[in-house]
């Protein structure tokens, strides 16, 4: 194995079902339902998925949902804004923990 990540692995995702077919079926059925048009459009869901992909830093997901977003009609400006939403939440999540830092510091300081 030369690298942990290979683009050729993404199309093999369904093969994961060979280990536990029933669980895989349940997962993929659920997955399809989640991304189907509902109260949110497929385009909006793809943008959310793109943002989350960057948060979990999954290269497979970033590859897949970049293409899905483009095919669902999102443009680069919208996709970049979605990534910034992920960045803001991720950064904000770090920053808001600064309150804990302040609490601890206040408790132990004179």
């Amino acid at each position, binding site marked *: 194995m030369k690298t942990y990540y290979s683009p050729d692995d993404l199309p093999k995702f369904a093969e994961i079902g060979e280990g536990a077919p029933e669980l895989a079926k349940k997962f993929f059925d659920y997955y399809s339902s989640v991304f189907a048009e509902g109260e949110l*459009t*497929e*385009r909006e869901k793809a943008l959310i998925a793109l943002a989350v992909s960057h948060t979990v830093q999954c290269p497979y997901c970033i590859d897949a949902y970049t*293409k899905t977003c*483009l*095919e*669902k*009609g999102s*443009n*680069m*400006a*919208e996709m970049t804004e979605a990534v910034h939403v992920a960045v803001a939440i991720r950064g904000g999540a770090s920053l808001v923990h600064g309150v804990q830092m302040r609490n601890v510091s206040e408790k132990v300081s004179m």
Partner: protein
Amino acid sequence: MDAQPDEEAQNLLAPVSFSDKLTEHDLTLTRGKTVTAQINTGLLCNQACKHCHLGAGPDKKEVMTPAVMDEVVEYVRRGDFEMVDITGGAPEMVPDIEYLVKELSRCVPNMIFRSNLTAIGGNGYKSLLKLLADKKVSIVASLPSLNMAQVDSQRGTGVFDKSIESLRKFNAVGYGCEKTGLMLSLAVNPSGAFLASPQVGMEKKFKRDLLNKHNIVFNNLFTFNNVPVGRYRGWLESSGNMAGYILKLADSFNSCAVSGAMCRTQVSVNWDGYLYDCDFNLAEAIPLGGVPTHISETSSPPEEGTEVAVSDHCYACTAGAGFTCGGAIDA
């Protein structure tokens, strides 16, 4: 005669050739009643778009002459067509294009004029714009995205701004506006190696955004897949996207889309008067019926039931919802 192209033209790395895919599904691609004549007026264009299946551009000299225009008018008159669809290149730039529009408007009840939205921008085209409006010719205008960077990347620097300006000009003479009868439609194709977006959602989004951001209105939006021939094929190859794109098209084959394919009801006439099943076969020099046929040599449109010449680029019109010259096929 068997209307199949040669082996080399079919070599697009598809896992299964389009012809074999039809056979797998027990389908044939044959003509229905031919109601539309698409007239390709030439390769001259002020743009050199990366997705162009014809390789049109400013350096091209191939344009329809008045003599061929007269033959086209006679062919359309003889053929009793319901629709004429004028395309290019940029038909605006063809000398005598106004003559062609005037003459054809006497022969058919419906006409489409395809505009790249930048050629018609200059003051020199005011009379053409007025003629199109007077004759109630429908406009189908190209605008691949609402994002300037993506439009300019595909179509050339500054094209997005010029396109917005031209859409305002079309609106100003009544195109796209209620109760004028002047139809303005947008043609949206992907700005890269991915499939076209769902048509209904895109129309809603474009209508909302063009109105809110640019105060522009239009009637309909059509989405199209890019067809892997001509300059677009060159871009796919040089960018390393060819194999993946062809695989995606082939994997997205929708057997239900075959019956609605545009080639079943239209015939394409090239700038020199020769006939093809569609503008993509024209780009690939795959003649109608397998033999080069000039409009002066035929008395009527292709007969119902005759075979359409297919090649692997046909996957672009049968992927997903499928596509016609009027965009995605209704489900």
